[in-house]
C-alpha cells in the first residue's frame, strides 16, 4: 500500500448561499494518477482550488505530506511542491515559451535583488543552471522548436503543452491538471496522454486530473473520484466507478 500524499476531509466550500462543495473527502496516494470527474458545475475545479490554496473552504481539513491544515495558501502550496495547470489557459501571454517555463522555477531561485540587478554571482549562475533544467523539460515535452516564440502566437494545443511544461519546471510532487485535454483533437489528446503517463512514470509525480473525456479518464487513471452538485458520488478504480449506478444516473439521467 502506497502512502498518502494528500487527504482532504469533509471539505465544505460556500460562496455566500451557494454551496460549491459539501462534505467531500478523498485521498491521493503517492505516485498515482487520480482523476476527478463529474458533470459541469460539480465542483471539480473548486476542489483543485482548495487543494492549492486559492479558495479557502469553510469546513474540513487538508493533510498534505503529513501536515494538516484548515486551509492552504497559494505560496505555501507552491513551495511545498504542488503545481497546476488551468482549465482556461493561464500562460503569461507576453512572454516567450522559454520565459514562461523559466518562471515555473521561480521558487528554486535564491539570488538577491542586487545580484540580479548587476547580473553577477548567483543571479548569473542560476540563470544558466536553471536554463539547462528547463531545457530538459522542453525536450521532454517536445517543444524545442518554439522555445523563443511568444506564447500568444502559439496554437491552442501547444499552449496547453507549454502550460504543462511550466508546471513541470517546478519539479512538483503533486501535479494538478485542470482539463488538460479540453478542446483538443484526437492526435493532440494522444500526445497529451502520453506526456501525462510519461511524467508519472519517469518523475514519479503524483497527478490529480480533471477530465471530461471518459475514454481518457478510464485509460489513464488509477483511481477516480466522482463529484456531482458538490457532493462525492463515488470513489474507486475506473471499473468500479463505471458500474456504479449513481454515477450512471448522474451522467445519463435517471428515470423517475
Amino acid at each position, binding site marked *: 500500500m502506497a502512502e498518502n500524499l494528500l487527504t482532504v476531509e469533509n471539505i465544505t466550500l460556500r460562496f455566500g448561499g451557494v454551496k460549491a462543495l459539501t462534505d467531500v473527502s478523498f485521498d491521493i496516494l503517492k505516485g498515482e494518477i487520480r482523476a476527478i470527474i463529474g458533470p459541469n458545475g460539480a465542483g471539480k475545479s473548486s476542489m483543485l482550488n482548495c487543494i492549492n490554496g486559492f479558495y479557502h473552504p469553510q469546513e474540513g481539513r487538508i493533510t498534505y505530506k503529513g501536515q494538516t491544515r484548515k486551509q492552504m495558501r497559494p505560496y505555501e502550496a507552491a513551495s511545498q511542491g504542488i503545481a497546476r495547470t488551468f482549465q482556461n489557459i493561464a500562460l503569461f501571454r507576453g512572454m516567450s515559451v522559454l520565459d514562461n517555463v523559466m*518562471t515555473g522555477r521561480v521558487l528554486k531561485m535564491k539570488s538577491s535583488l542586487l545580484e540580479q540587478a548587476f547580473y553577477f554571482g548567483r543571479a548569473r549562475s542560476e540563470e544558466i543552471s536553471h536554463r539547462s533544467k528547463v531545457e530538459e523539460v522542453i525536450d521532454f515535452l517536445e517543444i524545442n522548436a518554439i522555445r523563443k516564440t511568444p506564447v500568444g502566437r502559439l496554437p491552442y494545443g501547444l499552449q496547453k503543452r507549454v502550460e504543462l511544461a511550466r508546471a513541470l519546471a517546478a519539479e512538483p510532487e503533486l501535479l494538478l491538471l485542470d482539463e488538460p485535454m479540453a478542446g483538443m483533437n484526437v492526435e493532440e489528446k494522444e500526445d497529451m496522454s502520453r506526456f501525462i503517463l510519461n511524467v508519472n512514470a519517469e518523475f514519479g509525480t503524483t497527478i490529480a486530473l480533471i477530465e471530461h473525456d471518459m475514454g481518457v479518464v478510464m485509460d489513464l487513471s488509477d483511481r477516480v473520484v466522482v463529484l456531482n452538485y458538490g457532493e462525492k458520488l463515488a470513489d474507486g478504480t475506473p471499473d468500479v466507478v463505471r458500474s456504479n449506478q449513481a454515477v450512471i444516473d448522474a451522467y445519463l439521467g435517471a428515470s423517475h
Partner: protein
Amino acid sequence: MLYREAGDFKTTYAKDQALIPIRQDRVMLYIAIALALLLPFVASDYFLGSIAIPVLIMVIAATGLNLLLGYCGQISLGSGAFMAAGAYMAYKCATAFPWLPMPVSIILAGLATAMIGIAFGLPAVRIKGFYLAVATLAAQFFLLWLFTHVPWFVNYTMSGVPTPPPATVLGVYVTGADAPNWAKYLFVLSFTAFLTWIAYNLVRSRIGRSWMAIRDMDIAAELIGIRPLWTKLTAFAISSFYCGVAGALWSFCFINTVEPTAFDINRSFQILFMVIIGGLGSILGSYFGAIFITLFPIFLNSAPAWLGLDIPGDIITHLEFMIFGAMIVFFLIVEPNGLARLWQLGKEKLRLWPFPH
C-alpha cells in the same frame, strides 16, 4: 541579408542568455556608445544643453515607469512627483552632507524616493487599473504639496526655489551654474547608460519574469509561488528609484533650480506618453519615446522657420499642440504597441530581406 543571426551559433546557455546574443546588435551598441561619447566634440552647446541632456534624463524616468507599467502592469500617474521627491532629496543630501560625492547624493536620493514609492505602491496590493491610477494621483498632489509647504525641504530658503549646490566629479563641475554643458552631458550619460544596463539585467532575471507574470496573469503567478505583494512593491520601489534619480538630475544638471512646477502632473503625463508611444515592456522603447516626445515639439516649433514660412509665434505654439496631439492619436491607432514594435518589425523584415519567403 543585412541583419541576420545565421552562422552566429551558440554552444552554451551562457552565450545564448548573454545580454545581446546577436553579434550585429553588439556592434550596433558599440557604435552607439562611441557616438554618444563623441557627441560633445561635434555638437553645439545648445544641442548638448537643451536637447541631449533632457532627453537622456527623460530616458531614465521613462525606463522607470516602463519597468512598473510595461513590465509589472501597475499603472502610476505619480512619476512626476517621484521625480520631485528625487530632486528635493538630492538637494537635502547635497546640502546636509556637502562632503558626499555628487553621484552618491543622487543615488541616495533615488533610494529615498524608492521608499516613498513603496509607501504609495501599497494600494496596488488591493486595487488595479484605473483605481490604482487614481490612487497614485494622490502621490502626485500630496508630494508636491508637501515640498511646497514644508520649508525644511528647501532649507528655509526665502524664495522657496533654491539652486542646487555646485559639485565636481574628477575636478570638473557637473552641477551648478558654472558647470559646462559637456560635463553635465557626460555626467547624465553615465547615469543613463548605467541604469539602462541595470534595467536590462532586471528584466531578464527572476524579478523581471515575476513582474511580467504578475502583469500577464496574476492568479497563475501567485499559484506558481510568486508573492504579489513583494513583486509589486519591488516594481514600485525600483521604478521610483529611477524617477528619483531622473528628478535629481533634472534639477541639478538641467534646470539648475529645485522647484515643484517642473514636476507637476503634466510631467507625469509626459512620461506616461513616452512609455506608451515608445512601447510598453521595452527598455529600448523608453529611448524612442523619450526622444520622440522631447524632440517632436521642438521640431514642430522650428519647422516653419526652416521652410521659410512666416507664422506668428502664438499660432506656431497652437499648431504644435494640435499636430502633436493628432500625431499621438494617429500613432496609437496605427501601431498601438509603440515605436519599439516598429523597430522589431523592421528587424524581422531585414532578417528575410531581400528574399521574403
